[in-house]
């Protein structure tokens, strides 16, 4: 088993057997920890809150220079303004259609009845009747919550962002799938786009694209293009090369092979990418509200000003409903694509066609009615459901805060004194060079000089940013949050993966955790855990654990039934089955869950800065709010990206090793 020559994969790493590698890491860890403790307090590179380094001042100056030239530079006046006005036109078109009145008309062209009918029809045609019923019920609930217009504003902005993301993401994704060199080139760009906190580029984007729908759309695009692009690339690469070669040998050109063979076969995975793009776009609604984007996000932000938990929960719930509807619809559409591409023809063409016509006719009538009559245009009723939901949320938070606060305070103290403080003090007080050396060596042991170089570059940039000490504060909190996330991910994920029933019950809750804006649960969390790092960690866990749970569950489920059955017939009990068979076979999924868990946790660093976690997150927020800290905020954003890239590459290398290792056994 330890014979490395069995490995057929091309690995650049030093071919160290696993057990030996483990021993090396243990030695490395002991050396780092003891030197950190012996030399503690030396070369920790602290920097006061209000102090700036020359790099920060330089970055501030850079953005001011752009600011000054905004209106005179031909690049802005011609290129940027053209992009801006065409995006504005596109978004306004959608808004006029479903959400906003115009100068001559007080209501949108298509009222609620029309929108509901269109959603029903589209979902029924591309996904299934069952999901269509869910979608219609979901959209009617938005109206009953008293948030119809806000929801439509959010839908219009999300649709615009998703369409543009796909227009850009899919072609570039195909390119990345075809040309690995191109993919290598843009991967760091995508990393930046996904990990860089939005607060950092909110101000520059509004400077370039001005206040309005264009800026809100661009901010969303930055975050929603990467999933579309990445997943498309994976989709293209998954298509077996032999089928492409076969097609070329039969005389088709490269372009024909792409169009006739690769794209159709990649379709299903590309639809998964569309799904992820929609989710990413929806997760930006509250941030976009900070630059005047209309919709549900604004309700959440305004409710936060008065700490109105009920009202913000009401809007948060609407966002969750919209996300679930869009998620289920696109997932069902993906499943249908798969059935269609795996040859079987639809059950009966004729029937479907006549029902289609009927659906179309009903939809057209509904659109007409909603255009002409007020009752079909503006959602009737005063949103009583919304008022009730808000009242329930208010009293629930009140009750929890009153009765659980001793428990939660205790929990905060246990975690803070027992885990966060020790980890943070080791990381922050250690000399920078010992930690840096340990990280670079980790990279080398895992994947040789290439990974070591990547880690070294990240560390160098961290040092240049002048924020080493704050980075270590953030890293400590990130590690604790990731630890909790991974434990939850494995425990709950195993449970979910073993039972479809549990899955069905928990999935909506997991979805809610992923798309409910953090601003909604910030106030209750602050009430429970105070303005502490632990509050930030809990918020990160809420956001990150659903992804980890889903990934682990998926991994458990994909363990071939023959293996589990063999284990059961060999007399394993449930515990043995889980620990000896299912979890080890789902290794790769667990490693991926750790990787994604860490990245998701890092995405919440800025939210942590809003609730007392300090560190890089606070600096980003402060940079957004104060002119003279702008450069420092930007540097903090870059530092977060560097931590992200480092964590991502290292955990991925671990995952790859496990993968290789698993293959070696076979």
């Amino acid at each position, binding site marked *: 088993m330890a014979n490395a020559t069995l490995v057929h994969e091309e690995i650049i790493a030093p071919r160290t057997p696993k057990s030996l590698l483990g021993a090396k890491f243990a030695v490395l860890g002991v050396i780092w920890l003891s030197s950190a403790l012996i030399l503690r307090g030396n070369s920790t590179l602290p920097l006061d809150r209000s102090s700036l380094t020359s790099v920060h001042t330089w970055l501030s100056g850079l953005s001011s220079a752009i600011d000054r030239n905004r209106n005179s530079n031909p690049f802005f006046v011609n290129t940027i303004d053209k992009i801006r006005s065409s995006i504005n036109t596109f978004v306004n078109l959608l808004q006029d259609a479903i959400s906003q009145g115009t100068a001559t008309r007080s209501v949108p062209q298509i009222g609620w009845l029309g929108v509901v009918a269109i959603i029903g029809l589209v979902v029924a045609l591309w996904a299934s009747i069952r999901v269509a019923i869910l979608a219609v019920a979901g959209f009617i609930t938005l109206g009953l919550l008293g948030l119809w217009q806000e929801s439509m504003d959010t839908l219009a902005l999300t649709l615009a962002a998703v369409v543009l993301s796909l227009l850009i993401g899919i072609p570039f994704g195909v390119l990345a799938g075809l040309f690995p060199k191109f993919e290598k080139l843009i991967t760091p760009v995508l990393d930046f786009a996904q990990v860089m906190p939005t607060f950092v580029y909110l101000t520059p984007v509004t400077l370039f694209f001005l206040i309005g729908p264009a800026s809100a759309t661009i901010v969303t695009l930055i975050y929603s293009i990467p999933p579309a692009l990445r997943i498309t690339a994976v989709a293209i690469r998954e298509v077996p090369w032999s089928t492409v070669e076969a097609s070329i040998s039969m005389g088709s050109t490269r372009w024909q092979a792409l169009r006739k063979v690769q794209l159709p076969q990649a379709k299903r995975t590309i639809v998964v990418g569309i799904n992820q793009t929609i989710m990413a776009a929806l997760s930006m609604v509250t941030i976009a509200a900070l630059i005047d984007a209309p919709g549900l996000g604004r309700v959440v932000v305004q409710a936060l000003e008065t700490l109105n938990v009920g009202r913000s929960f009401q809007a948060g719930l609407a966002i969750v409903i919209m996300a679930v509807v869009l998620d289920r619809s696109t997932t069902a559409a993906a499943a249908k694509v798969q059935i269609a591409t795996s040859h079987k023809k639809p059950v009966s063409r004729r029937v479907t066609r006549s029902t289609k016509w009927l659906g179309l006719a009903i939809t057209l009538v509904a659109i007409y009615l909603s255009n002409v009559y007020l009752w079909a245009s503006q959602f009737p009723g005063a949103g009583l459901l919304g008022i009730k939901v808000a009242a329930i949320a208010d009293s629930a938070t009140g009750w929890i805060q009153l009765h659980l606060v001793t428990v939660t305070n205790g929990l905060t103290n246990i975690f803070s004194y027992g885990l966060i403080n020790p980890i943070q003090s080791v990381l922050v007080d250690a000399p920078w060079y010992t930690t840096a050396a340990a990280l670079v060596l980790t990279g080398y042991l895992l994947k040789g000089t290439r990974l070591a170089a990547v880690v070294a570059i990240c560390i160098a940039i961290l040092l240049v940013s002048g924020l080493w000490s704050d980075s270590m504060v953030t890293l400590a909190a990130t590690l604790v949050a990731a630890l909790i996330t991974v434990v939850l991910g494995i425990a709950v994920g195993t449970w979910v993966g073993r039972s479809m029933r549990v899955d069905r019950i928990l999935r909506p809750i997991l979805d809610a955790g992923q798309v409910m804006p953090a601003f909604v649960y910030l*106030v209750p969390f602050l009430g429970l855990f105070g*303005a502490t790092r632990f509050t930030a960690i809990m918020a990160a866990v809420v956001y990150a654990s659903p992804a980890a749970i889903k990934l682990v569950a998926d991994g458990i489920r994909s363990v071939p039934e023959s293996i589990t059955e063999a284990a059961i017939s060999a007399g394993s009990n449930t515990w043995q089955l889980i620990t000896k068979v299912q979890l080890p076979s789902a290794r790769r999924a667990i490693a991926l869950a750790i990787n994604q868990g860490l990245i998701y946790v890092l995405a919440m660093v800025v939210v942590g800065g809003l609730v007392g976690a300090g560190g890089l997150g606070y600096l980003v927020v402060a940079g957004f709010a*104060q002119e003279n800290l702008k450069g420092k905020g930007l540097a903090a954003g870059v530092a977060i990206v560097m931590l992200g890239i480092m964590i991502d590459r290292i955990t991925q290398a671990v995952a790859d090793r496990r993968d290789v290792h698993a293959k070696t056994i076979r």
Partner: protein
Amino acid sequence: MVSKGAKRRGPLLLLIVVTSLVLAACGGTKVGSSNSAAPTTSTSAKACGTFNLAVNPWVGYEADAAVVAYIAQTKLGCTVVKKNLSEEISWQGFSTGEVDAVLENWGHADLVKKYITDQKVAQDAGPSGNKGVIGWYVPPFLAAAHPDIVDSKNLNKYANLFKTSESGGKGAFLDGDPSYVTNDEALMKNLKLNFKVVYTGSEAALITAFRNGQTQKKPVIGYFYEPQWFLSEVALKHVALPAYTAGCDTDPKKVACDYPPYELNKVVSVKFATSGSPAWNLVKNFSWTNDDQNLVAKYIAQDKMTDDQAAKKWVDANPDKVKAWMAG
């Protein structure tokens, strides 16, 4: 489920559905039949046009904006576009021409320098009448239990009360929204106070801390400011620092005195000020007291009225003030 017959039943069903839907609709009000009554053309001296008003994210400002927007809309016939923006981006809007006015500005010397002095795209439009106070506060129960706590000289005696998991053995002092300039770290050092500044990072976090401190009788001390709607819920007590004298805060590293009193002011874009719009006249004359603002803020934050409802209530009760704002 659907059988072969569906093909023939299709058109029939369609007919039924269409007619029943159309019939059901017959009694409804048509779109546009009522909206012609809404914004009648008030042919006043000068057309107002569009008025772009920044709305910064705190309730006191929302109260200002609610009243000004209501008057501009109903009495001057302006099309008011409220833009929900942070302070930084609002000022940036002066230079890009997207924002006409900011109604409550808290100092921001850096932005004044950039947009008024250097770029010359914005100008001061006079005080808003509101007096801003920044300072240190404790919840009222604590001040009642330890009357001498409201003087910073006595704080070290109580530092132990404020210890938390975040403060590294010292007392925790909470700082809030990073939008405001604070000298608190320097103050701790220069006044030799045994406290560590903990950055809560948002107004929501700060208010929650004070609110829970009061209800759970848990000692809390932190940075806060007036006017603020929360003070009408919990009347925080101001902690005295060595008195402010002009220039005592010039060197941020050596500050050892209280924050200066703030005369909150209005800022407008130069373009707006020279446009001759009646909205500019309104903004220029707008001025009210902290009590006025607190009242409207209370309507919004605690009575949960919409901006327009709150503004209407106040405007109807204060016709004289409104009249003065609209005078030439």
